[in-house]
């Protein structure tokens, strides 16, 4: 057990703390800004970093992250650029780094080559929104060879027998989608989250991180259940959309507000 994700959750567990996982789209609005935003977030004490690779058709995203993807493509950000970015971060930091990307980016790049590059750059896990467990096998062994976890998602629609299947296949943590729909901030989460947590916890001992729609401390604190981590994405991307190359300090401020 030497994947940084496992180590991180083990440590947080010992401290009785929850993981703060934050998301940024690489290259939005350019790679330099992304790097600075990431440095700020790390400085403010995030636990796990999730970097999105831009895609032409991010069909699991709401308008916020969809537009970030288009901005990053506008600045010609490629998968190779993202590896360079990860390498640069990894030089200075040991926190777990996850890539969020659509499966075609891996497939077209070449699965083998993609995993090799991940290993080289220091990627610890992959979040692939359009890859349900039915299709995960094609990537699994290549990823495992490079000690890279594929993080599975579960949704409120996922029934118990399927949760069990997914849990069995999972490693690192399980990405628990808080509500129906695509990514994006939500005023209110209507899913019965404590039931969702209990169903999951009854099935697996893996860390459970909740994502989709989380945007402020009050909301996170108010959530019932013993979640092991929280994933914040659109709220950060919105700040970047607003402030562009000036966003790093605003993002930093926002992260601080979540930690306070």
């Amino acid at each position, binding site marked *: 057990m030497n994947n940084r994700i496992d180590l991180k959750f083990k440590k947080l567990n010992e401290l009785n703390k929850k993981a703060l996982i934050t998301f940024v789209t690489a290259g939005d609005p350019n790679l330099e800004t992304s790097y600075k935003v990431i440095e700020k977030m790390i400085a403010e004490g995030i636990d796990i970093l999730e970097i999105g690779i831009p*895609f*032409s*058709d991010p*069909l*699991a*995203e*709401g*308008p916020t992250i*969809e537009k970030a993807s288009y901005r990053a*493509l506008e600045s010609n950000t*490629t*998968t190779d650029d993202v590896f360079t970015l990860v390498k640069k971060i990894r030089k200075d930091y040991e926190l777990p780094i996850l890539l969020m990307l*659509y*499966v*075609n*980016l*891996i*497939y*077209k*790049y070449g699965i083998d080559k993609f995993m090799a590059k991940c290993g080289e750059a220091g990627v610890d896990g992959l979040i692939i*929104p*359009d*890859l*349900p467990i*039915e*299709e995960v096998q094609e990537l699994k062994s290549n990823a495992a060879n490079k000690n890279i976890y594929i993080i*599975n*998602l*579960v*949704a*409120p*629609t*996922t*029934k118990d027998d*399927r949760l069990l299947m*997914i849990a069995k296949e999972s490693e690192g943590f399980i990405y628990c*989608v808080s509500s*129906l*729909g*695509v990514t994006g901030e939500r005023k209110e989460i209507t899913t019965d989250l404590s039931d969702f947590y209990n169903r999951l916890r009854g099935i697996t001992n893996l860390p459970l991180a909740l994502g989709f729609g989380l945007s402020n401390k009050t909301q996170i604190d108010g959530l019932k259940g013993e979640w092991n981590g929280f994933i914040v994405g659109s709220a950060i991307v919105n700040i970047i959309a607003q402030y562009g190359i000036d966003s790093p300090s605003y993002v930093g401020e926002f992260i601080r507000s979540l930690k306070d």
Partner: protein
Amino acid sequence: MDRKFGEFGGQYVPETLMEALLDIEKAFLKYSKEPEFKSELKELYENVANRPSKLYYASEMTKDLGGAKIYLKREDLNHTGSHKINNVLGQMLLAKKMGKKKIICETGAGQHGVATATIAALFKMECHVFMGKEDVERQALNVFRMELLGAKVTSVDSGTGTLKDAVNEAFRQWTREVDDTYYLMGSVVGPHPYPVMVRDFQKIIGEEVREQILLTEGRLPDTIIACVGGGSNAIGIFHDFIKDEQVSLIGVEAAGQGIETDFHAATISKGSTGIFHGMKSKFLQDEYGKIMPVYSMSAGLDYPGIGPEHAYLYSIGRASYFPVTDEEAIVAFEYLSRMEGIIPAIESAHAIYYAMHLAKKMDKDKIIVVNLSGRGDKDVYQVAKFKGVEINEQ
């Protein structure tokens, strides 16, 4: 049930949608075998879709070209004007059996949207259609038809504002309301079980052709030609003949301004294997896997992918695929109008063009069947505009 065609197909969708897909697959497996479902569908095919559609001997075209005998499978004479209604009837019946009350769908040319809105009206289902902004503009007639039928039409302006983006948006909407909504996919694309299911609801086309051609000619055709957007009308007419190796199967893709330009939608000619819209198949994409903007004057063929079964048939050499440009399609559009008094959908005109080209080279004792997938009323404005004719609706 096989989830793949060789290496193609699969189910590459967000987990949120998986239970829904599994439910649909289960329901499809269950009902499509039941005699009651079968007889209800048959009844709908006959009384609502106006099936069987005629197999029309294009005597003037045959005479003019001087080669193979040409038959047209007249899906343009179906209610709502294209083959799309076959699939809609099948899926809508399934959705009803599943107890669904809300339907969403994507549409390109608007034919699938019109067919879905039509049958949703008949079945008293709520209907929400997603359509690319550019398609909303070039197919305004169909937009109003859908609204008249009671459907809500959402214009999608993300991405390229065409069919692919309409699919993206429909998927997004589906994840929001997946508990009570049925996504009625319009072609043999998307995650399993859609490619299988849509094919099964469209294969009636080929089954009828077999019966009809045996009756009139006493033998199978030599060649079957169909245009390919997602590929449903093509699979629909091919499927029953796949086992008959002597029947050559030809799909025609949209070459837009030419496959040597950046403005085409010729997936097989210029695409590569990838994973998108829930399926592994052939796509037009860049070296990193980004989906490329595509172009065709025909809204129904303006799609960067192709159904996985086509990718498979191509990979094993059972079907061939050829590109036809906008300009060639317009030649065929006008040719068929003047020659047989049939205005074809601009999509179908692609197939007609290829038949014009091929028939000349074939002996007079050979037989070609072309799938005339839809009628061209929806396209006359656009063709007029393309040709520089001023049309003012007042």
